[in-house]
């Protein structure tokens, strides 16, 4: 079922993924119906997709369901990935985060009782393996850069990214006006960007 496909006809030049973007390269091959490429893509991204879902959903069962949806979405919609708009991994994680957040919000609509637990919980199971710890260099960078934020910035990012809260909920949880929380989120991302760029 290898079918050659054309890119979207919007006239933009299509840059092939860079050599240091194996996920992007695999997405491009997956878009052509290349099943072995998709299997390899799975090896690259599944621990990241699943780990992010576990972190946001705080429930391994639901995380597995959402991961499955996300990973199949990568198969179905690989042709939407545009290498000139960013690396493959960023695209994958954007899809995964959005799905996980959508799920946690729909679950919250039913029960909204985990609020306090949400601010502190960091699920850790016995099933972490090599990749998790062997990339602890990057992991530590992120933690160090998160620590370099102001308390309000860090809480805003944590509640939004890791717990799927809207900025309105974050403002309410932290007792801060809406315009403040919106700008703190942006400031925090800019500071993280600069910190991570230096740490690389």
């Amino acid at each position: 079922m290898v079918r050659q496909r054309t890119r979207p006809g919007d006239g933009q030049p299509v840059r092939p993924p860079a050599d240091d973007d194996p996920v992007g390269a695999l997405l491009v091959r997956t878009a052509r119906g290349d099943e072995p490429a998709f299997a390899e893509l799975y090896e690259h991204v599944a621990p990241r997709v699943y780990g992010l879902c576990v972190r946001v959903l705080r429930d391994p069962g639901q995380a597995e369901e959402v991961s499955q949806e996300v990973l199949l979405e990568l198969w179905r919609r690989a042709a939407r990935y545009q290498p000139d708009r960013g690396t493959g991994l960023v695209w994958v994680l954007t899809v995964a985060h959005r799905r996980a957040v959508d799920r946690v919000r729909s679950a919250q609509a039913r029960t909204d009782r985990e609020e306090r637990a949400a601010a502190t919980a960091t699920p850790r199971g016995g099933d972490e393996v090599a990749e998790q710890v062997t990339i602890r260099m990057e992991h530590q960078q992120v933690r160090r850069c998160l620590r370099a934020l102001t308390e309000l910035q860090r809480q805003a990012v944590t509640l939004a990214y890791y717990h799927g809260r809207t900025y309105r909920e974050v403002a309410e949880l932290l007792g801060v006006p809406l315009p403040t929380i919106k700008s703190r989120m942006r400031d925090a991302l800019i500071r993280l960007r600069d910190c991570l760029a230096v740490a690389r």
Partner: protein
Amino acid sequence: MNRGYPFRRHSADVHTLIGPYVLDAVTGPERHAVERHRVHCPSCDAEIAELTATAARLADSTIRTPPEALRQRVLAEARRTRQDPPSAHADAVRRIGWHGWDAVAAVLLLVVFAVLVTYGVQQTRVDRARQQNAVAQSRQQDVAAVLAAPDAELVPTTLPDGARGRLVVSRSDDRAVVTLTGLPALSGRHTYQLWLVSGAGHPASVGVLDVGTRSTTRVVSGIAAAEAFAVSTEPAGGSTRPTNIWASVPLTG
């Protein structure tokens, strides 16, 4: 930042939403407002792309190995799932038209998948999954022991042909965790073999990959005396001496 044209009335609001948008902390209508705006505002578009890449780094600290069963389900379902065409137009249509018969068809499709997965496929896999789980668990314990060693260190690993490798070495434990991904496909019945090379003796084989395997994580013993870790390409089943060294990573220092 094009604060005037073409959304003079709303663009100020939209700009304040960039941070929340990047963190997926907005509602659906707000998300669409930002997406409509960025099409016309190159500077916002560039900032959003950059901050989105930054936000993705927040996932660095959440990596976790998924259950083996997930892999089997995803790959099996992909095999029977038709891919979407690459048109951006279809994306827009889908966003608006996701109701009525589309939704009914989608639900039916999901039911069919669920039935297939639950009754048709899962049964035959249970035993194999259990077996793999047991093996994976004992392997994970070994891996965790090496990584937890106080002197565990990451050895810089450069591999040819776009492959990626990570090597975490604990000399006190005399073991290392080797992770290889994206190994190039080999022609015919050939595969990769892993070696430890010491100054005096012959290279010692520390594992042979199955033919067709392109990524692996393994615990390797006998690291303390080794000066290099090497990967060779061999006929299926491996060799007693390396035939063709594909990569070599110094361990000294």
